[in-house]
């Protein structure tokens, strides 16, 4: 297992550099450049040229990439073209809130989806099952931004119970309670969306397993229905779910771009949007890097979890 992990990590290195090269090229292919934002008939062309020169944008593309790579290998991600703050600091400030939002939502999503899926499967074709399926369908089909805006309107404005956005109260005393209060709406929205999708996977997977012969054997041995469902069936039903959830994590970070806009959540989604709109190349590269790391490591973690959950799978 140890050797397997090491090998996977070694393979990840060239993949990782490939990703940086590709994202660098694609980013530079996008029309416009950081200095275009400053275009103004009253700024002399020479001034814009000087700005480009100072930002290093006049170098040939491969030189720009190698410069960036050189910095990266020394642990430097460079400075943002718009705020001139170190990129590592910008991302460092934002990654925490994003992970907080993503993990809480994922947790909520799973904790809703698994019991709901089990109940749905065990009571297949009952009224309860139809209700669950309908709810999951609703959760999947409501666009998150719409649900978000709706909840902001009802809970934030009409009822005034919850803050309409942000992560803390401005000028407030802060504290965990304040953050939790701000988290309720965005986590609910993301959690519901995730749960909506996952309930159907859990249900299908569980139904599959419930037909298996070994469960009949288990029942015949006199095991309680609780043990049969929650130990023997669930464990096997979870295997495909792990893949689905693992694949959800990068999606979740991508989806947070919209959610973070709606709720003004100070995460990397917001930063990404700003960086794209201002063609802030160093920040974008830093963000791509983080995304690449997350996707690669999540793939690895999913594969390892697979082996842990399913003894039939071994890596060598």
């Amino acid at each position, binding site marked *: 297992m140890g050797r397997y992990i090491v090998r996977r990590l070694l393979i990840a290195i060239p993949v990782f550099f490939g990703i940086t090269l590709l994202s660098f090229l694609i980013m530079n292919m996008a029309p*416009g450049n950081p200095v*275009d934002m400053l275009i*103004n008939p009253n700024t002399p062309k020479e001034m814009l040229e000087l700005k480009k020169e100072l930002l290093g944008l006049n170098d040939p593309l491969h030189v720009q990439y190698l410069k960036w790579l050189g910095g990266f290998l020394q642990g430097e991600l460079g400075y943002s073209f718009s705020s*001139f703050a170190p990129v590592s600091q910008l991302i460092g400030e934002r990654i925490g809130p994003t992970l*907080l939002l993503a993990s809480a939502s994922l*947790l909520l999503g799973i*904790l809703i989806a698994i019991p709901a899926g089990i109940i749905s499967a065990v009571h297949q074709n009952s009224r309860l099952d139809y209700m669950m399926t309908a709810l999951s369908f609703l959760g999947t089909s409501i666009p998150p931004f719409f649900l978000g805006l709706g909840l902001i309107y009802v809970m934030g404005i009409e009822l005034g119970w919850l803050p309409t956005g942000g992560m803390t109260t401005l000028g407030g005393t802060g504290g965990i309670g304040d953050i939790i209060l701000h988290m309720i709406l965005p986590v609910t929205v993301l959690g519901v969306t995730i749960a909506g999708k996952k309930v159907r996977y859990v249900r299908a997977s569980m139904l599959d397993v419930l037909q298996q012969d070994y469960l009949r054997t288990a029942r015949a041995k006199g095991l309680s*229905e609780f043990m049969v469902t929650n130990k023997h069936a669930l464990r096997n039903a979870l295997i495909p779910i792990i893949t689905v959830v693992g694949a959800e994590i990068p999606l979740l970070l991508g989806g947070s771009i919209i959610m973070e806009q709606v709720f003004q959540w100070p995460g990397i989604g*917001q930063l990404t949007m700003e960086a794209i709109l201002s063609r802030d190349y160093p920040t974008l590269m830093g963000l791509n890097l983080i995304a690449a790391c997350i996707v690669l490591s999540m793939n690895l973690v999913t594969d390892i979890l697979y082996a842990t959950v399913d003894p039939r799978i071994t890596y060598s």
Partner: protein
Amino acid sequence: MQSLLRVVHGFALLTMLILLLSACTESNETNVGTTAKTAPPETKSVDAKADIEQAASKTLTIGIVNAPVTLNQINTQDNSASLAPISLLNDALLDVTDSAQFVPKLAESIETKDKQTYLVKLKSNAKWNDGTPFTTADVAFTLKLALHPKVDTSFKLQFIEGLNDIGKLDEGVTDIAGLRIIDSTTFEIKTKTPIDPLVFNERFGVKVNFLPEHILKGVDPEQLSTHEYFQKPTVTIGPYKFASHENGQYVEVTKNDNYYLDVPKIDSIFIKVLPAANLVAQLQTGEIGMNSLPVGLVPITDYDKVTGFDNVNVSSATASEPAELFFNIERLPDKRVRQAIAHALNRPLIVDQLLKGQAEIIDGGVPSSHPYFNKDIQPYEYDPEKAKQLLQEAGWDSDRKLTFLIPVGNKVREQAADILVQNLEAVGIGIDVQKFDFPTLIDKVEKGEHDITIFTRDYYIEPSLYFTTYKSNDPESVIRYNNPLVDELIQKGEQEIDEAKRHEIYNELQEVLHDEVPTLAVYSEKRLQVVSKNILVGKPLNLGTFNNVNQWDLATK
């Protein structure tokens, strides 16, 4: 058996639920722990202080829809969002009111006899917020650093003697020939040629902010932009001082007790970044005290909604810089076609329906409140028949489709553009609409891929700045216009230093441009000022919002 099963499942569900709740709180705590660690220690002390003063402190939150990108006072990148915190943190020699009048700040007086040497006296009591006196040494330090060839700055000081055409020092030159320090509170600026004092007042008086020499002395110019001072500019000279900045979220400033003018009455101000939709919502809930101009716009389409809120006062600012159509003259060389377009547009409909009457119609780019606005020009009337006739005279090819590039981001402008497209199609001009984000749009414009585009220019006090667009010297400009008469008038206007003669020149220039229609204003918005009833003094303005911020006040609850 059945009922037992149900009980078991109910129990399973309950356990899951409890697990869910406990897991949720647990994950919050651990994650919060990590974020708190990365937060700078300063924020904590500020928070603690805020705790003690909570009862008595006055806090104002101003809503803005684009994030301030920088707090660098010598390189604002002309970013309107950044100007809000920067102007709270920094005083320049002068400030400006919304009627484009100059008010002295750091300057005691600015005098000139020949319009070429400007004698500036600083207020003798002016001091940085750490108590260090502000002197001409800081002025010289700032200018030398900002104008260094390797330093990026937003200063546009080409007119000062000793600077090159882009307003920088040449490589290897360290002294500014046009700057003479007389004593610690007096200095003199000499310009290359005589200039209208308006130019000096705007570009030097208002737009030059200062750097503290005692903090930044000895810094390497090439490393200046990434210097940590600009991330946390704690020592500045302005009514407010830096407290905290969460990128993309808010900037917090607190009052400067060492301020050399009257100390502000409001203790702290938050400039809070949020989407336009939430801006209206938070004005309603009272989380935001006022919107801001020009980057915290309450969409005029929400006019009826905000006037219905009972906790705010709503007023309209003077008509602002208009959204303008820019024609690519290389592809639309016949002025009759451009005039036809002017007649084809149903601008009254846009103003009445889309903008609820909160706008006016002008043809040129100079706003009607500007001193150099030519009042005698009659806007082109909405007359589709006239438009068709002009098109026929010009021999318009009805199969031709015009490419209309529209920048996304300003919803009202996008909706107005949609109406324009319908108007043009109604008189037989085919339109191919393409919407892009701003950098992409600029890229396409530079390549000349547009026939028409639309955007809004900035507000300029100095009138010549409205006309640089029409010069023929830039082959990649938005309009690619080439008119010797216009070039000549522009040059005359730039060089003329007599105000009355300048008015004449610019009136004539506006008339010529009105006839030629290289650009056409669509509507000039009277932006909404939505201000909480708790705010006794203070409201957002098109220009110089914070010129009297130290007099602003809130009602105590």
